[in-house]
């Protein structure tokens, strides 16, 4: 069973990686990268790294890829027409499908909640994993942890300085 899952996720990750390089349209590349991230999250689950799988989806597939897509669309590299043709053809199907998935998930969670059973059968496993990572992070790796916070702060300030346009003409060097 585990082997089957491994090969499925590995195949998805490899195909998505090749497509990422092969697609001409950057939007398609970004979407195949999302597929690769999801496959890697699945592999993390197989490796018992539950917390990292969740973080992988939230941080990579969520935050970082949104940033990528945002910049691609901001710079208008995606040839909006082509994307619109594909999206227009499948939009209704996609909306119905995603709505069905959402309703199914909410129904499952609500059913579990009202029935009084824990939301996941694996809850102890998951909390153990978070527990171990949290303990390591705040004891043995406390200093690197603080350094990471500094890196994020520096990146934040650097980005704002770099992208900011000087508004008032005058002696602006970068337009």
């Amino acid at each position, binding site marked *: 069973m585990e082997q089957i899952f491994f090969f499925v996720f590995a195949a998805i990750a490899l195909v998505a990686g090749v497509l990422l390089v092969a697609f001409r349209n950057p939007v398609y590349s970004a979407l195949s990268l999302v597929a690769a991230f999801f496959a890697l999250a699945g592999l993390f689950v197989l490796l018992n790294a539950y917390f*990292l799988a969740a973080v992988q989806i939230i941080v990579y597939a969520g935050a970082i890829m949104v940033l990528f897509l945002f910049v691609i669309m901001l710079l208008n590299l995606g040839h909006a027409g082509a994307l619109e043709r594909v999206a227009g053809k499948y939009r209704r199907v996609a909306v119905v499908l995603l709505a069905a998935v959402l309703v199914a998930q909410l129904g499952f969670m609500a059913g579990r909640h009202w029935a009084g059973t824990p939301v996941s059968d694996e809850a102890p496993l998951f909390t153990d994993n978070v527990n171990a990572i949290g303990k390591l*992070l705040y004891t043995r790796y406390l200093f690197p942890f603080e350094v990471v916070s500094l890196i994020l702060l520096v990146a934040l300030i*650097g980005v704002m300085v770099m992208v900011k346009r000087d508004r008032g003409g005058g002696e602006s060097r970068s337009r």
Partner: protein
Amino acid sequence: MAVPVTYYLILSAMLFAIGVTGVLIRRNAIVIFMCIELMLNAVNLLFVTMARYMGSGSGQVFVFFVMAVSAAEVAVGLAIIIALYRNRQTLDVGEVNLLKW
């Protein structure tokens, strides 16, 4: 572990190789960035595999740090790309030759 650790290592190496190939053959700066992300993820997979194999949590903590650093890297890199596009109206890395002698 039902799946041999070698399989994970091979998969990680293949993903890394795909990322390197992308960086080498693509000209679009954003796609190059995404290939770098793929390489970082291949290394993350290696970290998690080894954490499982060695039975220690440190590998997972390091994946955490890699993710934070790559988030910062993406933010700065995309800001550079936006500034580049504003000044040059292109993302082709072949035409950005300010630092080439």
